[in-house]
């Protein structure tokens, strides 16, 4: 079987009975088995469950009960989404034995669309990181260069798709955690508008910023997956009923008249020259296809990271209080009293980056500092949102890089947290403003590493970015990662 098929292509072959669900599932499970020692994209692989489910789904397809484009297609889920009865760790020691009693709404929706879950993917612990190196279960490697990081925090999902271990995966994006690893791994990832996809069952990092989205090989897959997982959920007060959710209708290869803005302030100091060139070339392609492309000043770009780290850390410090050794998860072996149990459990159960953010978040919310930090950050967030609102008065789509560089070497960024945070400069403001964004490959640097292009649109206007991304995609060639090519896998 050709592992390089997109999810929608595989779905078609299954529908046409060219390939069975069990065959497809086995092929990907074998692919995982062959590659995992080197990639480590998964925390949990559920071979038995997946094969059983594959048979069941085949029956449903044969009976005409599931008919969508993803019916029978295997998928991997980032390990911060709950699946009833399946180990869900957030790549943390503190949840090393946790099996949820319910399934995340987005995952349930995929299941209803006939998805076959093959396992849970590795991530930065509690989604805190940009490299997938903070995982308790070891770092994930970039399939383009095993000495490099896949990005993060959804590095497992992005690497698994790039390495053809699975046709598509779900990730989550709080400050770039879908878009940046997609960019580093040469795949396509989409962060929907805040509220588009239910967060029920997503183990929260920064609740006002988190959003689940697809990571796949191309824009068509992303549109199909988003159609399956989006929608208002009664279990998530912040999920929204919105129109414009027929995403596949935007796959038109027509950008005539689409107004695209390029923020000048995204192209200053710190941006790698090769990345810059590839992104500008992509803009040119869209212009040639009939889009109106123009540069402009977005403003406030340098304030997004400080505001983001205050808000995300504050929310995380509260969201992660529930991990206390009482109801689920890890509990320290020996303790003298209640508070000693709390402290030892949490100190042993969380890794350094998580502790760093919990400490920062607790501090900025503490008495005497709340206004100076947290409220200041929320006011900055309002200003950043206004800056985007102004831009979207003139443009339908904002175009820029996903990250200042291509994938970094393993261990390169962990030593200096602030340096690592600076890598999020193009992605975090999108979460602060609640906007939709897509990341797709737009070229390769001199090391052969993929370069990511980011497109943004107004709230709930995912269709404009799908339209632009799809048009661009038609004019570029998809490359398989070096890892797979070299080994003949």
């Amino acid at each position, binding site marked *: 079987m050709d592992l390089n098929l997109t999810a929608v292509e595989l779905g078609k072959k299954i529908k046409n009975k060219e390939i069975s669900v069990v065959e497809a599932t086995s092929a990907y499970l074998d692919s995982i088995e062959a590659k995992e020692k080197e990639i480590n994209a998964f925390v949990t692989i559920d071979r038995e469950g997946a094969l059983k489910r594959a048979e069941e789904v085949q029956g449903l397809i044969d009976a005409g009960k599931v008919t969508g484009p993803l019916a029978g297609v295997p998928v991997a889920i980032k390990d911060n989404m709950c699946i009833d009865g399946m180990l869900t760790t957030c790549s943390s020691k503190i949840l090393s034995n*946790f099996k949820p009693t319910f399934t995340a709404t987005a995952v349930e929706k995929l299941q209803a669309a006939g998805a076959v879950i093959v396992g849970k993917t590795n991530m930065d612990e509690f989604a805190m990181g940009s490299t997938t190196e903070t995982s308790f279960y070891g770092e994930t490697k970039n399939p383009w260069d095993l000495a490099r990081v896949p990005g993060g925090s959804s590095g497992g999902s992005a690497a698994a798709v790039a390495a053809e271990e699975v046709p598509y995966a779900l990730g989550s994006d709080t400050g770039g955690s879908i878009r940046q690893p997609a960019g580093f791994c040469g795949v396509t990832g989409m962060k929907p508008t805040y509220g588009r996809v239910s967060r029920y069952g997503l183990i929260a990092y920064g609740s*006002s910023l988190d959003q689940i989205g697809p990571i796949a090989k191309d824009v068509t897959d992303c549109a199909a997956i988003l159609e399956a997982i989006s929608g208002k959920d009664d279990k*998530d007060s912040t999920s929204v009923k919105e129109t414009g959710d027929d995403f596949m209708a935007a796959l038109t290869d027509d950008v005539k008249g689409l107004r695209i803005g390029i923020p000048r302030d995204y192209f200053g100091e710190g941006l790698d020259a090769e990345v810059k060139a590839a992104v500008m070339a992509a803009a040119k392609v869209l212009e040639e296809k009939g889009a109106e492309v123009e540069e402009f000043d977005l403003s406030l770009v340098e304030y997004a990271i400080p505001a983001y780290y205050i808000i995300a850390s504050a929310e995380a410090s*509260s969201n992660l*209080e529930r991990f206390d050794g*009482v109801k689920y998860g890890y509990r320290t072996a020996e303790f003298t009293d209640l*508070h000693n149990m709390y402290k030892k459990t949490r100190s042993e159960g969380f890794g350094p980056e998580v502790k760093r953010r919990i400490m920062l978040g607790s501090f900025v*919310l503490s008495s005497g500092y709340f206004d100076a930090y*947290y409220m200041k950050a929320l006011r900055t967030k309002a200003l950043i949102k206004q800056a985007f609102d102004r831009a979207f008065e003139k443009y339908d789509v904002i175009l820029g890089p996903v990250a200042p560089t291509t994938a970094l070497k393993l261990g390169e960024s962990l030593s200096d947290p602030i340096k690592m945070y600076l890598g999020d400069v193009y992605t975090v403001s999108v979460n602060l403003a609640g906007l939709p964004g897509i990341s797709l490959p737009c070229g390769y640097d001199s090391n052969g590493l993929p370069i990511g292009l980011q497109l943004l649109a107004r709230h709930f206007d995912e269709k404009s970015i799908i339209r632009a991304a799809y048009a661009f995609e038609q004019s570029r060639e998809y490359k398989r990662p070096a890892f797979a090519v070299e080994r003949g896998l």
Partner: protein
Amino acid sequence: MSKVYETVIGLEVHVELATKTKIFCGCSTAFGGAPNTHTCPVCTGMPGSLPVLNKEVVNKAIAVGLATNCTITRNCKFDRKNYFYPDNPQNYQISQLYYPICRDGKVEIEVEGKKKYIGIHEIHMEEDAGKLIHDAYTDSSLVDFNRSGVPLIEIVSEPDMRSADEVIAYLDKLRTTIQYLGASDCKLNEGSMRADVNLSIREVGAEEYGTRTEMKNLNSFKAIARAIENERERQIDLLEAGKEVVQETRRWDDTKEYSYAMRSKEDAQDYRYFPDPDLVPIVISDEWLEEIRGKQPEFREEKKARYQEEYGLPEYDADILTGTKKLADIFEETIALNANPKKVSNWLMVETMRLLKEKEMEPEDITFSAANLAKLIQLTDDQAINSTVAKEVFEKIFAEDIDPAQYVEEKGLKTVNDEGALRATIEQVIADNPQSVADYRNGKEKAIGFLVGQTMKAMKGKANPGMVNQILKELL
């Protein structure tokens, strides 16, 4: 000369709202289930779970706010209050700090004929915690989350009270108001109403407030009164000894009648409140407010006036009957079944009150139905039973809510109205008591009372007293 002190008291009153489900999930709020049988991922703080607000909680909170003359916050929000404790499953409590649903209210109280307003600073909505049970065998604690997520409102008063009597009048006012609304049963002993007392003292005439303490674990009006007196004395002793009152939370032990500071290094009391990002704002429209205003019931003062006017009840009786919603409800329901209001009032004021006192019950604990009280009154109106029998039957109704007609029938308690049977018994009584008969005939009118009593005794209390009198006089 010793200084004269004034006690300054403010109250934080928690009231459990009488909704069917919890504030943020579809679990039942029913009392008494086995541990953790009314729980779900939301109210046990499972990772990935999210809260969704129960609309009825907002309705009830607004109703209480309107009834206590508050301004309703038209755009209110929930915040997280962060602190670690095992009964708090997320280790943050969803509450309201920055935009509480109600503000700036007041209620009128009356103590020894003097009326006074007590200001309400704010009312906010929040979730209750679970319950901790001490396990003596293992010297550990067991957590039951059945109460976790039960909706609460916290009513925060201004520091406007100056005595235990005022505190109790204020609590009683809140309790009847909230009961009338059907927003809660407000039982202190079961914890559906809980009061924390903030108390400070200052010299009479001083402008500044003294340092206050917060007293917790007060489970009855009596405990509240005792704790206030005790804390007042403790603070005066400290000041007189030249020491300072420390701002702290204290726990009252009602059996030992003293309080102790709840302090620990691990309890920093820095709750790091911030807006809960999992919940969206509540916007309260004019229409919504009007809808709730339109459903507000007749409150105690209006009812009391109406009972006096419409039913001609004395003020005292009207006051007692409206003192709890339960009594007023039974009163009105019984009247609705065509019973005479004065007679109903009489049964509630005399026999019901006597039995409540005897059995150490609160009016809220009454279980008998209006229907059976109405039937009992009907039986006495029909002279089917006499008053002695009626009291006996009422005790049975009070205890078991029996059907009085059926009971009287089964036990053969019906008044004997059969003249033949009465005449035969009376003839025997006359024959057996020649001395009394002679006394009566010699003009001692009182002697007849003895003969009536003897007849009733012979008839086991079931004789119609009017007929007995009449036949006796005739035969004598």
